[in-house]
C-alpha cells in the first residue's frame, strides 16, 4: 500500500520534469512573440506616420471644403496597416479591425505617439521647490535653546522676519534598466549650497529587494525620509529637532526588503558614514551609524488606513561640537515607534480627509561631555492631526515634548541639564493650497523649549514646479 502511494506521488511529480520541455517550448514561443512585437512596433511606427498623413490630409481637405476623398483614402490605408499589425501577432486571437468600430466620424486608429527625437529627450526631470517665510516672534528665534539636549546646528527655528528658508532643486531620471538616480541641491538662507541627497536606486532586483546608495535621508521614523516641503507643518517637531537635528541624512547604503504578503511589511537596514548629527567625525572607519527599521500597514476599511513603524538608530560620535564649542564623544542610541492613520470618506481624499500621526522617541546618549562622563536617557513624542475640511483648506494641531534625564551634578547648568523644565511646544496650522503644487500656511506656535516661552506666528509659501515625483503615504 505504502509503495503504491509513493508511486502515485512520483507519478504526479513526474509531471514536473515534463515541464522542462514545456519551458523550452515556452522560451521558443516567447522569442517568437518578441520578434512579432518588434514587427508590430515597426508597423505601428508606419501606422503613426500614415495617421499623421491622414490627419494632414483631412485638415487640408476641410480647409478647401473639398470632398474628403483623399483623407478617407489615407485613413482607410491606415486602418489596413493596423489590420496587418494585428494579424501579424499570433497571440492576438481575433484580428478584426476594431479601429473602425471605435471611430465614428473619421477613421483614427490607435496611434502610439513617436518619441521626440530632440537631443534633450533624455534630460532628467528637473523640479524646484521654493519656500518663503515670514516669522513674528515674541523672542529671538535664533537664541531659543532646547533645554536638556546638546542640539545640532539645524535644530533651530526659522529666522525672525522675512527669510527664504530652504530652496531645493532636484534632478531625477532612470539611468538604465537597472538603476535610477536622484540628486537634490538645497540652498540655505545664507546662500550656501549643499547636496541634500544624491543617490542611486536599484530598479529590478528580485525578491522585493531595493538597494539605495549615496547620500540620502534615513528611512527611520515616519517623517524623517520626507523632504521638509512634504511635512504637514512648516517646521520639524520638537523631538526631531532635539534628537535628530531636524532630520537624519548621511552618506551610506540602504537595503530594503518588501515581504510578499498582502499586509504591507517592509524591513530595512542602513549603514552610514557617521558625519551627521547625532554622529560625528565618521567613527568606526567611516561606518559610524547603523539603523534598522520595519514598516507595516494596511487598509482598516474602505475609508481608513494606517502605517506603523519601529526604527532604531545607533551612532558613534567623536568630538561632536555643539553650542559654544561643547564637545561630546560617545554613543547615541535612539528607538522610534511611529503610527500614522489616514481617513477619507470612502477613500476619496479630494474633499475631506484626516491624517493623524504620532511618534515616540526613546534613547540614550552616553560618553564624555566636555570630558565629563555621563549617561542620559531621553524621551520625546509628538502627536499631530491635519484635517482638510473642504477642497484646498485644512487645519492642523500638533503637540510635542521631550524629557531628558538629569546628567548629574558635574554637568548641572550645561545644555544637558533641562533645569527641571521639560520642553513642550503646541502648534496650530491653517493651510490653503492653491493647487497640489502650491501652498500657503499660517502657523502659530507656543514654544516652551527654553525657560521663557516663545510665541511665534509664521507665514509660509511652498511651491513645486517641474516634474515632481508622487508623494509617499
Amino acid at each position, binding site marked *: 500500500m505504502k509503495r503504491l502511494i509513493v508511486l502515485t506521488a512520483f507519478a504526479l511529480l513526474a509531471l514536473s520534469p515534463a515541464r522542462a520541455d514545456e519551458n523550452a517550448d*515556452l522560451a521558443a514561443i516567447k522569442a517568437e512573440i518578441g520578434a512579432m512585437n518588434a514587427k508590430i512596433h515597426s508597423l505601428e511606427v508606419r501606422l503613426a506616420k500614415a495617421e499623421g498623413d491622414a490627419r494632414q490630409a483631412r485638415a487640408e481637405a476641410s480647409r478647401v471644403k473639398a470632398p474628403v476623398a483623399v483623407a478617407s483614402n489615407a485613413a482607410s490605408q491606415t486602418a489596413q496597416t493596423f489590420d496587418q499589425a494585428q494579424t501579424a501577432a499570433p497571440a492576438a*486571437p*481575433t484580428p478584426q479591425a476594431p479601429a473602425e468600430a471605435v471611430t465614428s466620424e473619421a477613421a483614427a486608429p490607435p496611434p502610439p505617439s513617436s518619441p521626440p527625437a530632440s537631443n534633450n529627450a533624455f534630460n532628467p526631470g528637473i523640479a524646484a521647490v521654493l519656500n518663503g517665510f515670514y516669522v513674528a516672534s515674541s523672542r529671538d528665534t535664533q537664541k531659543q535653546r532646547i533645554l536638556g539636549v546638546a542640539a545640532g546646528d539645524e535644530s533651530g527655528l526659522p529666522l525672525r522676519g522675512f527669510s527664504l528658508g530652504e530652496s531645493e532643486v532636484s534632478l531625477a531620471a532612470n539611468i538604465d534598466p537597472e538603476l535610477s538616480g536622484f540628486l537634490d541641491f538645497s540652498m540655505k538662507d545664507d546662500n550656501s549650497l549643499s547636496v541634500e541627497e544624491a543617490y542611486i536606486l536599484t530598479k529590478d532586483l528580485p525578491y522585493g529587494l531595493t538597494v539605495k546608495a549615496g547620500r540620502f535621508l534615513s528611512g527611520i521614523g515616519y517623517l524623517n525620509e520626507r523632504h521638509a516641503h512634504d511635512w504637514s507643518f512648516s517646521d520639524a517637531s520638537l523631538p526631531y529637532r532635539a534628537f535628530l537635528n531636524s532630520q537624519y541624512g548621511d552618506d551610506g547604503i540602504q537595503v530594503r526588503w518588501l515581504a510578499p504578503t498582502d499586509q504591507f511589511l*517592509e524591513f530595512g537596514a542602513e549603514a552610514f558614514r557617521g558625519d551627521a548629527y547625532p554622529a560625528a567625525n565618521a567613527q568606526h572607519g567611516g561606518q559610524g551609524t547603523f539603523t534598522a527599521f520595519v514598516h507595516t500597514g494596511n487598509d482598516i476599511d474602505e475609508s481608513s488606513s494606517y502605517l506603523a513603524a519601529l526604527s532604531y538608530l545607533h551612532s558613534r560620535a567623536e568630538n561632536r561640537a555643539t553650542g559654544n564649542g561643547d564637545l561630546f564623544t560617545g554613543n547615541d542610541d535612539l528607538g522610534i515607534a511611529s503610527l500614522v492613520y489616514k481617513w477619507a470618506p470612502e477613500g476619496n481624499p479630494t474633499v475631506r480627509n484626516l491624517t493623524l500621526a504620532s511618534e515616540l522617541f526613546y534613547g540614550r546618549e552616553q560618553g564624555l561631555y566636555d570630558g565629563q562622563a555621563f549617561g542620559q536617557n531621553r524621551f520625546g513624542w509628538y502627536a499631530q492631526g491635519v484635517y482638510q475640511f473642504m477642497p484646498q483648506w485644512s487645519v492642523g494641531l500638533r503637540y510635542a515634548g521631550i524629557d531628558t534625564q538629569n546628567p548629574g551634578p558635574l554637568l548641572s547648568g550645561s545644555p544637558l541639564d533641562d533645569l527641571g523644565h521639560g520642553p513642550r511646544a503646541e502648534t496650530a496650522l491653517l493651510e490653503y493650497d492653491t493647487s497640489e503644487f502650491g501652498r500657503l500656511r499660517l502657523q502659530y506656535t507656543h514654544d516652551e523649549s527654553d525657560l521663557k516661552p516663545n510665541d511665534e506666528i509664521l507665514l509660509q509659501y511652498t511651491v513645486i514646479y517641474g516634474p515632481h*515625483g508622487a508623494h509617499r503615504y
Partner: protein
Amino acid sequence: MRKLVIAAALGVLGLSSTAQANVSIFACEPEWGALAKEVGGDKVSVYNATTGAQDPHQIQARPSLIAKARGADLTVCDGAELEIGWLPMILQQADNPKIAVGQPGAFDATNYVHLLEQPSRLDRAEGDIHAAGNPHIQTDPRMMLPISHALAARLAQIDPGDAAYFGQRESDFEKRWTAAIAKWTQEAAPLRGINIAVQHHAWIYMENWLGLHEVVPLEPKPGVPPSSGYLAEVLQKLQATPAKFVIRAAYEDDRPSEFIAEHAGIPAVKLPFTVGGTDGAKDLFSLYEDTISRMLAGLKK
C-alpha cells in the same frame, strides 16, 4: 503515514501549479479591472486599486496598494498621466520588475486608442492638463474594443499557455460588446444634439459617442475647484445657452453641480463614471446601461 502526507502534498502542489496558470492583475481603475475579468476569465485574479467613489487623479499611495503591487504580474491602468500623482510612488516602493514602466506587465489602455485634446501648450497655469490628451476614454464604450483586443494579446504574452482561452473569451466579449453598443446607441438617441453642462471636463469621449454638446464645465480649469464668482459666470452662460442637465461623476463633490442645478433650474445628474460608481453600475455592461438611463431620466425631469 508521514510519507503519504508529504507525497500527497507534493502531488497537489505539482498539480496546482500546472493546472492553474493565474495572472495576478493590479487594475488601477475598476473599469479596467472589469475588462480584464471579461477577457481573462478565471485564469486571472483582479485587484482593483481604486473604487468608483474615488477620484483616480488623487489617490493616496497607501501601504495596501504597495503590498498588492508587489505580487502583481500585470498592471492594467488608464495611462496618459491619469495616475501620475500616485502610481509612480507605488511602483517605486513595490519594486516589482515585472510591472515596471515599459515591461510587458505594464498595460496602459490609452496606448491603444486615439486621444483627443492633446494640449498645444503645456503649462500648469492651464490647470490639471494631461500632456498625452484627455485620459477619460472609458466614457465611450467603443474604446473597449481595441483595448480588449490588445489586452488579450498582452495576457497571452504573459501567460502563453492560456492564449487560446484569452483569444476565445475576447472574441466572445467583442461580439456581445458590439451588440451592446448598438443597443445603447439606439437607446440614447433622444440625447443626440442636446446641450449639457459638466462638472469636470471628463466626458468628451461620451459626448462624441452620443452627440452631446458640452456648453460649459463647472471647473474654471481642469482640476481647479470653482469659486462662487466662476459659478455665477457659468449661470450666465447657461442663461444664454440653456442646457438640459448638468452631469458629474459619482466621486465628485456634489456641491457645484447641485448649486448650478438649483440656480439654473435644471436637473443634476450623477453618473457612475466607472464600475461601482453607482449601485446600478455593477459590471462593465451595466456601467453604460446605468449611465444612459440616468441621462434619459434627467431629460424627462
